[in-house]
Every structure is written in C-alpha cells, then in structure tokens.
C-alpha cells in the first residue's frame, strides 16, 4: 500500500485539531467532576454557545476574533456560574446521576432555543486576517489558522495544568476536591471556588467553541454529537489526572485522523471501539482511578 504523504498529513492535522477540542473539553469535564462531582452533559451546549458568542460579538457589536477569544469564554463562563448558583448548587448533596440528568435537561434547553432561532444549518465565521493563508512545509501545505488552533490549545491546556497542579489556588482546589469540609474549616470560601471551577470548565469549552468557529462553522448542534465522543475520551482516559485528559484527548484525535486516512468507514466509530477495547483490557481507564 503506497502512502500519500500529502493526504496523510492533512488527515493528521484534522486529527490534531479534533484532538485539541477533545483535550479542552475533557479537561473541563475533569475539572468540573473533581469539584462538583457531576458530569456536565451541557458541555457540548456551552461549546456551541462559545462559537455563537464569537459570532454575535462580530455581527452585532463589530468585535473581532482576538477580543472574542477572551470575551466569549468570559461571557459563557459567567452564564455557567449563574447556572451553578441557581440550579446545580441545589443538587450537590444528591446522587451524582441527578447532576447528569439536570445538565442533560439544560443542554436540551440551550440547544433547542438556538435551533429555533438559527435552524440547523451553519453560519460562517471568517478566519482573522492575521491567520489567513498557509505555509508550504515541503511535504504538506499547512493552513496557518489550523496550526494556530493546535498550538494555542496546547498552550491553554498546559496553562490549566499549571494552574491546578503548581499554584497555590490550584492547591486549594485539589484540597477542596479531597475534603471540602476541612478546607472550609481553614476559612477558604469553598462554595465560591466551586462556582469559579464550574465557570473555568465551561469557559474552556466556550474557548474551544470560538477556536472551532472558523473551521466547522457555527451550528446549534455542533456540540451535541461531539460531547458523546468526549464522554468516550473521558472513559478511556479516566478523570483522575489533568495531564491524562490532555494526552488522551490529543492521542485520540490523532488516531481518529489516521483512521480517516487508512479506513475512512470507521472514522466515526474508532473512538468508541477504542473505548470498548480499553474497558476490556483495563476497566479503570488508562490513567484513572477505579470508580
């Protein structure tokens, strides 16, 4: 079998980009799960809201891509914090599964509202001028925007890892994950930290949404199927480790890209098949603690 390097590297790049989104989304899920003990089913919906926020900023307020990269995650993160304060907070002492059901309902509401106003087709969002065009790397043509998405996502992932694993704030966070009552006794405002954590996780998803807007277009259902793949990624990687989520996310994106080249029929299902294999071999996930 002869390998077309051009096509292979193009699919690998697509895989890396999808991997960036998997990493950003599963990272947010893991952070939220650590503090709130819920699986945020609305994660796909807030990813979509991030893309729409960028779209609104551009088309209503005339604010371009670069400010949107900060403003959209902030706005959506704030929305997430309101959701946490008004709803998620009240079920904190119940079975984890109620959190899943509640956020599933929220996802239906958010996606349904957007579908009513924008249908199911995609809205275009232009690549910013500074990132237009491409580079010829000899073996492949690299569109600059796509390269930017991969590198920027990687930086954000590493920064989040640093924030949680290496800073004082992160230490409080990890302590509160282990034993919230004790951390509260030290005078640290744990409920506020929970709200901020949810905001951070949701903001990361929204950031992924902004990054994907110029590539995948802005669609109300853009996050609906993606979140199920991310769930499979989380099952494979486990939610015990931040770095584990990042590596698993990128690795699965690359494997998906390779599948698109070598056996395109399976590209939709390869992540799920890998999940089955991992469950058969190592039920607790690659990096996770058994749950």
């Amino acid at each position: 079998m002869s390998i077309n390097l051009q096509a292979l590297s193009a699919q690998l790049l697509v895989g890396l980009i999808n991997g960036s989104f998997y990493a950003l989304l599963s990272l947010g899920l893991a952070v939220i799960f650590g503090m709130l003990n819920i699986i945020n089913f609305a994660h796909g919906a807030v990813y979509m809201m991030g893309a729409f926020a960028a779209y609104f900023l551009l088309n209503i307020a005339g604010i371009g891509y670069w400010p949107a990269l900060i403003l959209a995650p902030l706005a959506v993160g704030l929305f997430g914090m309101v959701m946490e304060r008004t709803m998620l907070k009240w079920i904190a002492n119940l079975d984890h599964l109620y959190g899943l059901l509640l956020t599933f309902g929220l996802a239906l509401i958010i996606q349904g509202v957007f579908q009513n106003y924008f249908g199911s087709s995609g809205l275009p969002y232009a690549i910013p001028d500074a990132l237009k065009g491409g580079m010829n790397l000899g073996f492949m043509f690299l569109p600059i925007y796509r390269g930017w998405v991969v590198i920027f996502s990687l930086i954000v992932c590493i920064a989040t890892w640093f924030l949680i694993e290496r800073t004082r704030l992160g230490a409080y966070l990890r302590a509160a994950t282990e034993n919230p009552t004790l951390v509260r006794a030290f005078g640290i405002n744990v409920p506020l930290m929970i709200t901020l954590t949810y905001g951070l996780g949701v903001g990361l998803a929204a950031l992924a949404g902004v990054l994907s807007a110029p590539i995948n277009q802005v669609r109300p259902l853009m996050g609906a199927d993606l979140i199920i793949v991310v769930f499979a990624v989380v099952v494979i990687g486990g939610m015990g480790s931040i770095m584990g989520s990042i590596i698993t996310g990128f690795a699965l994106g690359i494997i998906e890209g390779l599948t698109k080249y070598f056996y395109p029929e399976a590209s939709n299902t390869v992540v799920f098949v890998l999940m089955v294999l991992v469950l058969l071999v190592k039920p607790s996930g690659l990096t996770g603690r058994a749950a």
Partner: protein
Amino acid sequence: MTTITENAVPSPRRTVKDEMVAFAIMTALLLVVPLTGVYPFFVMQALCFALLACAFNLLIGYGGLLSFGHAMFLGTAGYCTAHALKVWGLTPELGIIVGVVAAAALSVITGLIAIRRQGIYFAMITLALSQLLFFVYLQTPFTHGEDGIQGIPQGILFGLFNLSKPITLYYVILAGFLLGFLIIYRAINSPFGEVLKAIRENEPRAVSLGYKTDQYKLLAYILSGTLAGFAGALKVFVAQNASLTDVHWTMSGEIVLITLVGGLGTLFGPVVGAFVIIAMQQYLAGFGQWVTVIQGVIFVVCVLTFRRGVIGEIAHYFKRSL
C-alpha cells in the same frame, strides 16, 4: 447522600394488595380504551414506550444503574423485526422473536462491557455504545440509512389475528405490554429482585454476604435490554417503520425523561410517564424545536423539585408503594 432511588418505598411497607388493585385498575382502563373513542394509535404508541420505560426502570430503579443508551435495544429490535417481516417475509410471531433475540444478544455483549464500571461511568459507556451502534446502522445497507425501513407488512399473528385491523392490533399490543409488565413484576418480587435491591442499597455488604454482584447486575441488564427489545419489536407493528430516530441518543434521553416524570423506582411510574410525555408530544407537535426546549425544562424541574415523579408523590402521600 441520597441515592437516585430515594423514592422507592422501602420493602417492608410494600403490600401486594395495593399493587394488585392498581394493576387491576390499569388493565381495566386499558381494556376499555377502544370503546371510548380515544385515538388508539396514540395509546398503542404510549404502551410501547411504557414497556420500554418499565424495562429501563428495572435497571435503574432496582439495580441502581442508569443506562443512557436504551435506545440501542429499541432500535436494534425494531430493525431486525422490520427486516424479518419485510425482506424475509416471516410471520409476526417469528418477527417478534427475531427482534427480541437480537436485542438479547446485544444486551449480553454490551452488558459485559458496560458492567465493568459503575455510576456515572456506566451512564457514559452505555451512551457511547449506543452512539457506536447509531453509526453502524447509519452505514450498513439493510437499515436503508436515513430512509429507514418503511411500509412494513403487519401480517396475521398465529394465523388468527389480522394485525392490519386497528382493534385487533390494539389488543395484541396491550397483551404484549401486560406480558412484559408482569415479567418485570415477577422479577422484582423474586429472590433475584431482592438481591438486586440489596446491591442497590449496599453493594459491599451484598458482596460480603457472598453474592456475585456483577453477575446479578449483568442479569438485570440483560433482562432490561431484552424487554426493551420486545417493546421495540411491538412498536414496529404500530409505526410500520423502523428508522434512525429510534437509535439516536435523543430517544435514550426520552426514555429517561418518561421514567423520571412517572417516578424512578416505582412500579407504575413509567406507564404514567409514557402517557404524559407521548401526549405532550402529540399536542405540541406543531411547535417544532420548542418541544425539545419543553422536554429540557421538564428535566430541570423534575430534578430540582419533583424527584419522586407523579406516582412517587402519590405513593409518598398515601405512604404506600405503587
């Protein structure tokens, strides 16, 4: 921490008499439906979803396992029954058997995989597995992709009952529903059901008593998946088609919603929930995507303020188990 089945009334207070009375009332109401002029198609559809939700409820209400992929059993049985009836030209009873056997086989395979993780992971795994099947059905030729299998002949059951007559079909579907319901009722009240409840309440203790809890959970999962498949096979005769919507994750969500509204862990809750949700969909069909929004709102309201569901609240008020 309260468990998701907090509304399941503790076993000692259960009285078989209450349940008998409730069952008699339900059966009587369903038997006279064709005389009342209520649109029978609506009731038949609701009965299929009621059986589906009862099967789902067996797993969460008595096993404590939340499956977010029950649509895969509905869809798999639907496709197989539809294929058997239309392409192989089998009789209705054989068609149903084909669908149920397919769902049973699927539940054995997926059960062995999903049962390896608990709680929230179990929900995510079942969701991912059903999405895997969705893509398989999207690509395999026998399901006819986006079109689905249409125009399925209803045939003559046991060579006696002509299912293309609505009134005959209604009583056949009702009989199927009652059969499934009684199987579930029998399972819950058997020693097997008692062990399941013990596992739900305190798994480490059940393990310490020597029960192989994984085997019990797997068995509950297989029973639940098979009965959900039975509901899917029956639904083929009502809808006369089998399509991708039946395997989609939105369908799995709908099953959860039906059970949540009616009352998780209650015997009759899923039946009431099915009638409520299917009626709502009928009346709101003209509102497009707002139906999705309303379903989301019901989810949120139920989780925040109405966790016992309709039947759970009634049972709680009268301090009975239903």
